[in-house]
C-alpha cells in the first residue's frame, strides 16, 4: 500500500500529556489543526503509533489534494476532456464512494461541484453573474466522471473533481486504522473537527467531544459522548462572506449553484468518519429536509438552524 509519491512531508508532532493516562499529539495537515489522542500504550509506543497515523494523513493529503500539482486529483483534472488516467484501487474506491454519495443524495453531493468556486469569489465577497453561474452549473455531474476499470476520465475539459468533501474524513478513518494496527484500543483521531474514535477511555468512560458554536468560534454549544465511531460537523462558518446582511457560505448546492442557508451547522454521529462527514454535508444541502434524511439514515445528530434553534437525536 506504499505510494510512489515523492516528498510527502512527515508531520511534526507536538506532544501533550493530558493526564497520567492520555497523551495527545498535535500536528498540522490538510490545512487543519489535527490531533491523535492515545491511552494505554507506553510513551514510546504511543508516539510511534501517532507518528504513523500522522504520516498516513500526510500520505492521503499528498495523494488527493487539489492544491498539489502531482496529486492524482490534479492529474485527473489536468487531463479532463482528454486522455484516460490510470488509477489505483484506493482511488477507484473513493470515486465509487463519490458515485454512491451522488446517487444516495439525489445529486446534492457532487465532487464535480468545485467548479462553482470559479464564479463564487469568497475572498472578494461578491455575488456571481447569473450567466456565468448557469454556464458553470452545466459542467457539474458525477455521472460525467467516466470510470472504466482502473482508468478514469472527465467528460468535459472544463470539469474538475475535488475529494475535499470526504477526504479529511477518510483520512481520519485511515489514521484510526493505523492506530488500531499499532495496538491502540483507547483513543481517537481528530482532523480539524472530523473525529474517529477507536474505543472509549481505558476506564470505559466515553470521550467528551465539544461541538463548536457556529457563531462564537471560541465557545462550544454542546458536548457529545463518543466511545467508538465517528463525529463530523459541517457548518456555514468555515468559509463565508456577507453581502447586504446575507451570509453566503462555501457549501454550494450543485443544482442551483447557490450557498445553503437553512442550517448554521450540523454534526453527525456515524460508525465511520467518511459517512459522518458526507451525511453532515448532504444534510446541509437538503436544507429544510435535512432531519428526515438523517432520521432515515439512522444516525445521531445535532443540528443548529439559521435562527439558532437546536435539533438533536
Amino acid at each position, binding site marked *: 500500500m506504499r505510494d510512489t509519491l515523492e516528498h510527502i512531508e512527515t508531520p511534526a508532532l507536538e506532544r501533550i500529556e493530558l493526564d497520567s493516562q492520555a497523551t495527545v499529539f498535535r500536528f498540522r495537515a490538510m490545512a487543519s489543526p489535527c490531533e491523535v489522542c492515545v491511552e494505554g500504550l507506553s510513551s514510546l509506543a504511543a508516539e510511534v503509533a501517532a507518528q504513523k497515523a500522522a504520516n498516513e494523513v500526510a500520505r492521503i493529503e499528498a495523494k488527493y489534494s487539489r492544491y498539489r500539482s502531482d496529486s492524482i486529483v490534479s492529474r485527473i483534472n489536468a487531463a479532463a476532456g482528454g486522455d484516460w488516467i490510470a488509477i489505483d484501487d484506493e482511488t477507484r474506491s473513493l470515486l465509487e464512494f463519490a458515485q454512491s454519495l451522488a446517487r444516495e443524495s439525489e445529486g446534492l453531493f457532487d465532487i464535480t461541484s468545485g467548479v462553482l468556486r470559479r464564479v463564487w469569489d469568497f475572498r472578494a465577497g461578491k455575488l456571481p453573474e447569473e450567466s456565468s453561474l448557469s454556464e458553470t452549473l452545466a459542467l457539474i455531474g458525477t455521472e460525467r466522471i467516466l470510470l472504466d476499470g482502473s482508468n478514469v476520465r472527465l467528460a468535459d475539459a472544463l470539469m474538475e473533481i475535488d475529494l475535499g468533501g470526504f477526504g479529511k474524513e477518510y483520512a481520519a478513518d485511515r489514521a484510526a486504522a493505523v492506530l488500531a494496527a499499532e495496538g491502540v484500543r483507547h483513543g481517537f483521531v481528530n482532523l480539524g473537527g472530523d473525529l474517529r474514535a*477507536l474505543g472509549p477511555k481505558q476506564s*470505559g468512560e466515553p470521550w467528551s467531544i465539544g461541538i463548536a458554536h457556529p457563531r462564537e468560534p471560541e465557545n462550544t454549544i454542546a458536548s457529545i459522548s463518543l466511545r467508538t465511531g465517528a463525529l463530523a460537523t459541517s457548518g456555514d462558518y468555515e468559509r463565508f462572506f456577507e453581502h447586504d446582511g446575507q451570509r453566503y457560505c462555501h457549501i454550494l448546492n450543485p443544482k442551483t449553484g447557490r450557498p445553503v442557508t437553512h442550517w448554521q451547522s450540523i454534526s453527525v454521529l*456515524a460508525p465511520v468518519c467518511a459517512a459522518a462527514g458526507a451525511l453532515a454535508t448532504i444534510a446541509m444541502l437538503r436544507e429544510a429536509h435535512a432531519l428526515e434524511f438523517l432520521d432515515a*439514515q439512522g444516525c445521531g445528530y445535532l443540528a443548529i438552524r439559521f435562527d439558532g434553534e437546536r435539533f438533536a437525536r
Partner: protein
Amino acid sequence: MSSKIDFAGSALARCAPSDATAVAGPTPSQTSARFGSITLAALALPGLVAPIGAQVAPLEEGVIAAKFGVYEDRQPGLTRVRAISPSLYIASPIASSWSFEGSLTHDNVSGASPRWHSSISSASRMADHRTAATAKLTKSFERVAVALGGAYSDEQDYRSRAGSLELRIASADNNRTWSIAFAHTDDNIFPTNRAARGATRRTNELGLSVTQNWTKHDVVQLAISRAEGRGYYNDPYKIVDIRPRERDQTTATLRWNHFIASSGDALRTSYRFYSDSFGIRAHTLDAAYAKALNDRWIVTPTLRYHTQSAANFYYDPVYDPVVGEPFPVVLGRFASPDHRLSAFGAVTVGVRADWKLDSRWTLDAKLERYEQRSSWRLGGGGSPGLAPLTALIAQIGFTRTF
C-alpha cells in the same frame, strides 16, 4: 411435554435468548436497521477498521422485543395442536463492560395428543401451558467475553432447568471469533397419567464455534456441538414407547452470510448435519434472502429442507396381527411410534417482513408453512404409512432499541 416441532433441541440454543443471531456481522435486520445507505457505502472504502468490532464488543444500546406467535399443525382431517406464544426479549448494557439478555415465553398449547402414528385417530384432548425464561449475563474484556446463562422451562408435566457458560475470544484484527460453551440441563418429567414418577434426565453439552469475517461482505461460521444425555426419554403417553436411557447427539453447522453492499441485501445460508445414538442422521439446508426494498422495508423469503433417517427402534404402523394396534409386530428391547423419530423429509417455506418505523422502532411479521412427508426423504426410503403433517407458524412483533 413440549409438542412443537423441535428436532434435536439444544440446551446451548435454549440458553441463548431466541432473538440472538447465530452469526454476527452484516445481516440486514441488524446492520441496515442501524446503518443507513451512506454508512454502508463508506464501509466499502479500503483500509478502514471495522466499526462494530468483533462479537465480544459489549452491547452499546439496549433492545426490547415482544413477539406474538401462533403455531398450528394438522394431518388430513385432524387439527392436532395449536399453540399461542407471547414472548418478550430484552438485551441491555448495564455497565461499561456488562450486558444482560433475557427472554420470557409463555405457550398455551391445546389440541389432540400428538405424536402417535397418524393412523391412530383416537387422540385424547390435551391442554397445557409452558412458561420459559432465559437469562444471560455477559462481561466483556478487551478481546474476550464471558457469558453466564440460565434457562428455565415449566409446564404441567415437565420442568427443565439449564445453565451455560460461554467464552468468546476475538482475534487481534477482530476478524475471527472463537467460542467455547458448556451447558448442563436437568429435566424432570411428571406425566399426568403417572406412567413415570419423578423421571429425570441430565444432559451435558459442549459447543465450539469459529466465526470468520471472510471478506468485507462474507461471514462464515463453523459450529460443532456434542450433547450427552442420560435418563428418561420415553413418551409416557404412548403405550408402547421404550427408548434407550442415553442419547448422544452430535451437530455440525456451517453458516455463510453474504452481504450485498450495493443493494443492502443479505443472503443467509446454513447446512447442518445431525447424528445421534438413536440412529437418526439428519441433514438440514437453510436459506434466507433479506431483500432491502428501501430504507424502511426488508422482506425475507426463507426456505428450509430437512431430511432424516429413522431411529433404530422406530417401528412402522404395522401392528401385531393378534393383539392389534398399537403393538408392533416385533417388540424389541426399544420401540417407539413417535413420528419425529421416523424417516422423512420436510420443507419449510416462509416469509418475514421487517418494517422500520423510525430509528428506534421496528415491526416484524413472519409466516411459515412446514410440511413433513415420508416420501420427501432424500434418496427415498421414508417411513411408510404416515400421513403428511403440515404446520403453520405465524408471528408478529416489535423491536425497540434504547
